[in-house]
């Protein structure tokens, strides 16, 4: 019985030129990366592009990944950069199409579908630095410590953004303005946005 290869093995093979190994890595991580991008950017098209860009940047830079951090963490940082790039490129009047409403697991409950679509839309109104924390911690079960490492911010900042993000989402859902105060105080560390092809790698 052959054991499934772990990420490190696949990465080594991919670094050696084995494209099918990289395809396996993509299969393993695509769901999380795509969901991160979809909840961050709001549309399936943007999520598709950001996911593709993330994997391309990952492939191009695979040679410099040394395994000091987990591959998934490294890939997440690349994906976040791709999302930030997409958000920076975005025109201010981007609107969300109705067709971008996600299909819920329980397809025959119209209420659930509506609710999920509402939450998704409201999430897009939450300021980006809060939204990313909500997605990582609430939707993808990334620990506060790891979110802090991923975003290069203190743990206290993550917790603060978590609280404010939840509150902003709650307000957006009830039709209120999600931004009681639009941004954090000036002393706060802005979200880290390293260049797309050279995400800082944890050593």
């Amino acid at each position, binding site marked *: 019985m052959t054991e499934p290869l772990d990420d490190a093995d696949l990465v080594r093979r991919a670094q050696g030129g084995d494209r099918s190994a990289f395809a396996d890595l993509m*299969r393993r991580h695509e769901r999380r990366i795509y969901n991160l991008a979809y909840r961050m950017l709001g549309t399936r098209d943007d999520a598709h592009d950001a996911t593709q860009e993330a994997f391309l940047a990952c*492939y191009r830079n695979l040679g*410099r990944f040394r395994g000091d951090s987990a591959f998934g963490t490294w890939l997440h940082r690349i994906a976040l950069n791709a999302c930030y790039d997409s958000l920076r490129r975005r025109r201010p009047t981007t609107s969300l199409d109705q067709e971008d409403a996600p299909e819920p*697991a329980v397809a025959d409950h119209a209420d659930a579908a509506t609710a*999920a679509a509402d939450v998704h839309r409201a999430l897009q109104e939450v300021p980006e630095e809060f939204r990313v924390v909500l997605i990582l911690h609430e939707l993808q079960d990334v620990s506060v410590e790891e979110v802090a490492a991923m975003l290069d911010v*203190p743990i206290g900042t993550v917790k603060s953004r978590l*609280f404010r993000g*939840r*509150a*902003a989402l709650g307000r957006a859902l009830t039709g209120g303005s999600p931004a009681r105060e639009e941004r954090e105080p000036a002393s706060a560390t802005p979200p880290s946005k390293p260049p797309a092809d050279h995400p800082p790698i944890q050593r």
Partner: protein
Amino acid sequence: MSERADDRHPDDLLSDYVDGRLDGEARAAVERHLATCVRCQDDLVTARAGAQALASLPEVDPPGLADGPLDWLTPSATVADLATRRVGGRTRWQRATVALAAAAVVVVLAGVVTVSLSRSEKQASTSAGARAPSVSATQPGLGGALVSGPAVVDQGRSYTASTIEDLAHRLATDVEASAPPGVLPSPPGQSQAPGKIQTSPLDPATVAGCLAGGAGLAATDTPLYLEAATYQGVPAYVGGFRTSDSHPAFLLVVVGRADCSILYEARQPL
């Protein structure tokens, strides 16, 4: 505790409070604050609602990129290329064909003129000998500059993954050794006709265009090596390129002749 605790509103503690993770003095401090702070009381309510809403949000299915064509996944592709590729994948291919066709006349002429040069001069690796089948040494990547490239070699070779890897290794060594980078010696192996490079009647622009389209290479990538052969029994083109990203490497790409789909790719760091 957090070094960022805001004395007025302990937002960093409130998320733990919502999650029921605060004990002892921290919890007491938060509750003391909440007793008198309407803003935080309101935020607490909405934060609970927000947390609950997120708990109900399902995962969505990804598009399955790994199971589709992977031609977009090449080290020399740029992020800017992806948008074009997704909307109209032929645009880059068309541009590549146009750019290479412009040079085709020059390349074919050079091939005719220089094909009969003896290979024995190759050992000296002088610029004249080493560059035999190519027109001139230009810098790949400069838009508008004269695009040169090698003629198409056809020695009826039959490749496998491991012989492609061998070839890539050998060509990469030659690329590293040659200065300036020009044409590479013919492939090693069975039917090495001494002293001659066999050219194919195939148009180099067509071969290079097929490689560029299938492998997703940029239009300004000048091939260093072109060969018509078979790969695992399938009629194919083999093309060698130097990558233009920050980690230079030699890329040997195999594409099927019928549809220019990528069959194999070997990469050798330089």
